[in-house]
């Protein structure tokens, strides 16, 4: 499903070159549930963004289903993201001008698919926010906003979910619910998950855990 080979991403930090992702090679097969742990600044977010084609590598290859992301045109990459990937971010990522329901529906705007309000409502129900469809993000708690963002990531039925500390600001019960939902999607639809987390207990329950240190990656 995801093949990464000799991947490098450097940033200029003052006069020095920062190796944010340093020679990473890994494969994630379809339906896998993988976690990445590591200290802050170790390159987890950068790696996740590289996997999603949100940023271009300095060298190395990222392919999704055998397709080299950076051999695709810009539009094709956008289509692939729209169709096959769902992103969940570390930070609040809802559009403040849109209602919860509209936020969840955003990815359908760029899809030819026929997902609509009913699908969005169902997802909101699954993350426990059925009654908030018409609310605006500002009216929700941080944890509720995060769950809306999670629902949004699933709206186009992606094959891959790339989640960056998705349960960071959730209380334990809600975190368990969300993880249960992830597990459910993973089992029922064979959705592939790559989850960046600080939560070692969560990491322990995944099929495989990687640890990032200074841009390098190693299997735990």
């Amino acid at each position, binding site marked *: 499903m995801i093949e990464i080979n000799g991947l490098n991403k450097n940033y200029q930090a003052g006069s020095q070159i920062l190796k944010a992702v340093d020679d990473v090679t890994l494969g994630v097969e379809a339906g896998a549930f993988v976690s990445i742990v590591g200290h802050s600044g170790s390159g987890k977010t950068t790696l996740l963004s590289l996997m999603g084609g*949100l940023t271009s590598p300095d060298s190395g290859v990222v392919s999704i289903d055998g397709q080299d992301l950076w051999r695709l045109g810009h539009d094709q990459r*956008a289509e692939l993201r*729209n169709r096959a990937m769902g992103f969940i*971010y570390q930070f609040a990522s809802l*559009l403040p001008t849109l209602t919860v329901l509209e936020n969840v529906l*955003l990815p359908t*705007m760029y899809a030819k698919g026929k997902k*609509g*309000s009913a699908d969005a409502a169902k997802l909101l129900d699954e993350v426990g926010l059925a009654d908030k469809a018409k609310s605006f993000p500002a009216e929700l708690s941080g944890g509720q906003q995060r769950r809306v963002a999670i629902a949004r990531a699933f709206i186009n039925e992606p094959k891959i979910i790339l989640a960056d500390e998705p349960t960071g600001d959730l209380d334990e019960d809600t975190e368990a619910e969300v993880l249960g939902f992830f597990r459910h999607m993973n089992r029922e639809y064979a959705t592939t998950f790559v989850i960046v987390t600080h939560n070692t207990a969560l990491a322990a329950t995944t099929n495989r855990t990687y640890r990032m240190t200074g841009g390098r990656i190693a299997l735990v």
Partner: protein
Amino acid sequence: MQMSNFRLALRNLSRRGFRSMALAVALALVVALLFAGAIAMKSISTSITLGSQRLGADLMVVPEGYQDSARATLIAGKPSVFYMPEEILDKVRKVKGVRKATPQLFLKSAEFECCTYVDILLVAFDQESDFTIGSWLKEAIDRPLEDRETIIGRSIPLATGLTMKYFGVPLKVVGDLAETGLEYIDHAAFMTLATAREMIRKSRTMSEKPLEIGEDEISVVLVQLDPAITPERAKVFVEYEVEGVKALTSQDVIGTVKQQLAVLVRTIGGIGLSLWLITVVLIGLVFSMSVNERQREMGLLQAMGAKRRNIFSLVALEAALLSLAGGLLGLGAGGGLLLACREPLRNAFKLPYLWPDTGFVLLAALSAVIAALTSGVLAAAWPAFRISRMEPYQAIRKGE
């Protein structure tokens, strides 16, 4: 429910309601100015053309040195008097290309004279050879004018039936003319040549200020030309063949008004265009700002599958909606401005205010809105392009 760029754009505009409104109002101001300006210009220039057509003469022959006074009289209806021998009429009639020629004699009502309506132009004309005033008269009384009778222009507030007295000659108002748009007609009292001659005679004994005019003098000769000859050529012929006169074409007569008009066009146009430029720069700046603030949002949309052109068109659509609102607002304001300025315009140009035909108004409205729309979209084009080219990850991080 369907999410669309349109909905997104509307929501974004209303989120920053005050800013959006300010931009729309700035653009509305420009549109109002340009739209109202165009309509005003058009109506003034139609009025001028119409006015000179109504004058009905191709050439006006006046004594040399009095061209300016003649212009003032014909355009502004300003009483001014100048005279030349009547024999000029016959000379003019013999000039090549002249089909008809008719004399007119202008008298200025004396100031301080009792019982008269001061400061009007008394125009005596020759009913036999006349081809200009007759048609107006016909509408008013439908019979030839008798001696000691007058028909007055629309701008003179005197009732029919009243008798005025000028230079010792009673003058009975037998009717008034419809508004012509030509002050020389609207502001004058018309009478027969014989009446004028009687006034000249009587003024020597009856008036404090006798008219110093010979009995065989006239003020102008109005000329109708063969269609085959241009007024410009005929003018040269007349001035060459008849000594001591100048011939004015209707172009000459309306030239001053045209000049005034040109100044106004330049002023309004200049102000409008500079305002426009400022507004376009303003829109560009505001959109740059707004797009910078929304980098993360744009990056998120790209991560969700928005293509570069989706991002570009989202920003462009916001600009278009804003400009459209501004344009329509401007049309409304411009229309209001026109109505409000009717009187001042009318007074400034001594011309009736004629609303241009609907076709022109629609065209002007459409052009104004299209201009607003394109300038708004063009102003936002660069910020829109820039944001659409950002790498999604960079855009998302920038918002942090």
